[in-house]
């Protein structure tokens, strides 16, 4: 059983943060590893292949962004960014470098645990199911059909592509640029306005209350997040 415990690597130079995360994660039955700087982080990831990494952007030896890029050269599992700099550019940059999610300091344990669980679960789903379910919504990836409480709904081709991209990345934050590139193609440029219109249309069809969306959630200044 113990070998099935998901392993979490926390990279942070603040001893206090590491201590409290160690106590909390171990209580929640995770395997806990810690690194105090970028070099240690790369080394530990290489030798232990953790299931998820929590990475602080402010490290003493190298820039957190740089560590992220180096990790992503081979490491495909989720990475959560921790940042005190509530500077959205930094977060967007990290997400575009394929960080899976971010948490701003100070944060509460529940918040972080929820993200961790979500990302780990999604990682499993993606490998298995051709059918995805999100509360009242069911997406059949094979037949390209979408059901709202068992009633099929009609989507345009672009709307479906958009929803599909959200669904297979559920739980992850997706930046505007990432969405545009993946759904509209690499030359789609910077038409955030465009995206906003499609999201509004999609919400009309898939949300129970489009004015108070529960599935397709806006992350101000960064992008969108899909899923519960």
């Amino acid at each position, binding site marked *: 059983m113990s070998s099935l415990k998901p392993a979490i690597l926390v990279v942070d130079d603040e001893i*206090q943060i590491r201590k409290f995360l160690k106590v909390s994660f171990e209580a929640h039955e995770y395997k806990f590893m810690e690194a105090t700087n970028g070099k240690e982080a790369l080394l530990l990831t290489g030798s232990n292949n953790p299931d998820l990494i929590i990475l602080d952007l402010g490290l*003493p030896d190298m820039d957190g962004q740089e560590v992220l890029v180096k990790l992503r050269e081979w490491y495909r599992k989720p990475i959560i960014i921790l940042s005190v700099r509530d500077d959205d550019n930094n977060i967007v940059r990290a997400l575009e470098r394929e960080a899976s999610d971010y948490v701003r300091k100070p944060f509460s344990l529940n918040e972080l645990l929820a993200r961790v669980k979500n990302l780990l679960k999604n990682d499993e789903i993606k490998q298995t199911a051709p059918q995805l379910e999100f509360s009242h919504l069911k997406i059949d990836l094979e037949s390209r059909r979408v059901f709202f409480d068992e009633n099929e709904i009609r989507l345009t081709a672009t709307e479906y592509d958009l929803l599909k991209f959200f669904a297979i990345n559920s739980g992850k934050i997706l930046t505007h640029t990432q969405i545009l590139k993946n759904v509209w193609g690499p030359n789609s440029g910077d038409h955030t306005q465009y995206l906003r219109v499609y999201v509004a249309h999609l919400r009309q069809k898939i949300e129970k209350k489009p004015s108070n969306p529960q599935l397709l959630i806006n992350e101000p200044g960064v992008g969108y997040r899909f899923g519960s």
Partner: protein
Amino acid sequence: MKDLRIEEDFKPDPDGLLLSIKREESKGHRGKLKVFLGMVAGVGKTYAMLRSARILKGNGIDIIVGFVETHKRKDTEEQLFGLEIMPRQVLFYKGKQLEEFDIDLALKRKPQIIIVDELAHTNAPESRNKKRYLDIIELLKAGIDVYTAVNVQHIESRSHTVKDIIGVDIRETVPDSFLDLADEIIVIDFPPADLLKRLKEGLIYSTERAQAAEVNFFKVGNLTALRELALRAAAERVDKDLRDYKQIHGISDTWKSSPRLLVAVFASPYAENLIRPARQLADALNASWIGAYIDNGNPLTDLEKSFLVKNFSLVQELGGEVITSQDEDPVRGLMRVAKQNNVTQIIIGKSQRPWWQTILNGGPLISRLMRISGDIDIYSISNIDRKIKKKKKLFTTPLNLEKNENEYGLLFILVFLSWFLASALVQFLGYLSIGFIFLLVVCLSGLYLSRLSTLLMATIFAGLHNFFFIPPIYTFTVERSEDFMMLSMFFISATVIGHLTNRLRTREKNLSYREERTLAAYCLAKELLTAKGLRGVLEVGSSYLERTLAMRVLILCSQDSKDEYAGSWIFGYLNVREKAVIDWVLKNGQHAGRFTQTLSASSGYYIPLVGKEKVYGVIGVNTESIANLDVEKISEIDNFSNQIVSAIERELFHEKFKKYSLIESSHRLYRTLLESVSHELKTPLSAIKGCASALLDPIVNKSQSFTKDLANEILIGSSRLQRVVENLLDMSRIDSGLIKSKLVPFSANDLIQSAIRKFRSDFPERLIEFAESNFDAEVLCDPIISEQAIINILHNAHMYSPENKPICINLGKEKEFIKVSIRDFGPGVKSGEEEMIFEKFYRVTPERTGGIGLGLSIVKNFIELQNGKVAVQNHQEGGAVFSLFIPLEKS
């Protein structure tokens, strides 16, 4: 494609275009000038002006009459009705009451349009400007439109022709460059026959005066000639406007490269007869023109110098540029100037020199000039000294007698000595060889004496030789023909050699003068380069000018209403008049003061420091001690002023840059501060928030050991937060001056023990070694802030030391202080940072966490509040040692 090529070919000349645009542009800033041009008095210029004024006034335009002379003509006076007339300025001069146009009042009233009649009028002495047209320039600069009237005979370049026609001297003239400013010229034309009729009817002058005027001036022939002149002047003007228009609108014209004229200027009144036609020719060709003076090194008399200055100002008044150059050969000099300035035509006068001088100077000037001029056209103007009455004898002799008085003594001593030597030697050498002694003396003295003295000496020697030595002696007769031959040969060779050595000397002098000037400019440039700050530049510049000119000098730089000045002629001591001149120069960017046209009653000569964008300041030269300012000095000051301007520009740029980088660095500081404060606050806050939320988590909560750990972390986080907040509060209290120390005697041992206790409560695992002193160390301190200072140092040591290393504290005495040394085992202090680490918000490694860079700064402030001091140095075995010096209690 074809069209494109044509367009390429017809591209307007960039220089010409620039000039036109600049003129257009400057027209936009200033008021518009409308000139009513007439051929003669009485054609109705004033009438026409007033009529249009009434029409404009009727249209609601603010037009006033600044100054109008109606000559009591009835129809003209009627036109004045209903117009606002400015009061005249009343001046008393030599008992006479004079009425003048009041420029200051006009500037204060600032109407839209003002009428100022009689453009060529010369103002009363003591007025600000010598001439009325200078008043008008000021009005235009102030943005006021001006209507004015003038007769053709008063236009500088035409006045000569008018004089030729009617034979009367025209004294009051207006420079052509002023008329170039006119936006519109309106010719008031009147047929001569009708004019004469008007005159007879007494409509122009009262009858007696009319009679006199008719005889002198109003003849049909004269009037016709004047009419033609006026119409032609206006036509030329129209032509020029058309060309300007074509330039601006890119309409191609026949001329490709702009013609440029050069006229030779020399130190005589005749030069005027060359300069005026040059201006006319330049106008007709629409060319720019240069007046060039070649200084061949012959010293000028004061009179000649004054002619030269007058000719220069004439060139400038007529819109030309003055260039002076040194060359022993005027032809070569002229050609050099011409080539440097892309001159297309050269204008010279036909020489009136005697044939022998022409031969001595290597042939007639004009033919030599033609030989080497290449593709430059040469115009020769004949008989340039016509009509100049030889009132004064200008050239006492072609040779210069100026310095001779000092020379004559030397001359006669030399003559006497040579004669004495010759008499002593004659019996040994024979009278023929004696001649060589004389020849030698003449040659040598050519190096020191003037040309006239050498000539004189040669003559005297010839006489002496003949009288005393050539048989028959004691007579001036010569017996033998070979003696006669020898004597004449002697005389000729002595003269020629003397002349040649003299010329050689002049050339050398010239060369050394030029070298001196180059050297002076170089030295100034070098000194200005090392000058520090704007003040430094001004000081270097003024002391340099004072040294070279041997006059008292003032340099003022006026920047954003802040004045900086230097020089021994102190600005603060100037009287109101001089300050007014300085203000005028600053405002107008033109020369003024003594020896100029503007405000010439002042005791200084003022040169503006004109830069690329604006007038930076003024150089003032105190000319009280001199009677004349010669051309060389003026051009020297101009040269220096240019150098000073570029130095000022450099300094101002530097200052601007410094200001900018200061703002930049304070921005950077602000950013790092914000970042570090936010980091320092948020990190403990995240720990507290995280731990507290974990404590609420039911799974974590189950284990006793977990909850204890978490509670402990919350405690650590809060003390850390508390430290940051306290540091910030302490710093703001220090900054606001609210913190005051209460000094009491206290035991240093107790102070340190107490600090250690407090520190341990936060960091119990850190080892601290403190050896209590064995002496009784009483210090005079404020225990609370001293303790805080020590805690801050301990905390700093804790942050930088490895966990297993201790912090060592020692107590010692040094003079009247107790020295508290706190040693850590961290990386130590980098050399050069010993002072900086005590500065606010300074962090040795900004990316390293911990601290916002206030701790040590607070230590320094706290200790200094108690009259103590702080220092830091590295321990020889690694780590830093902080020393706090706290004053001993003296009991």
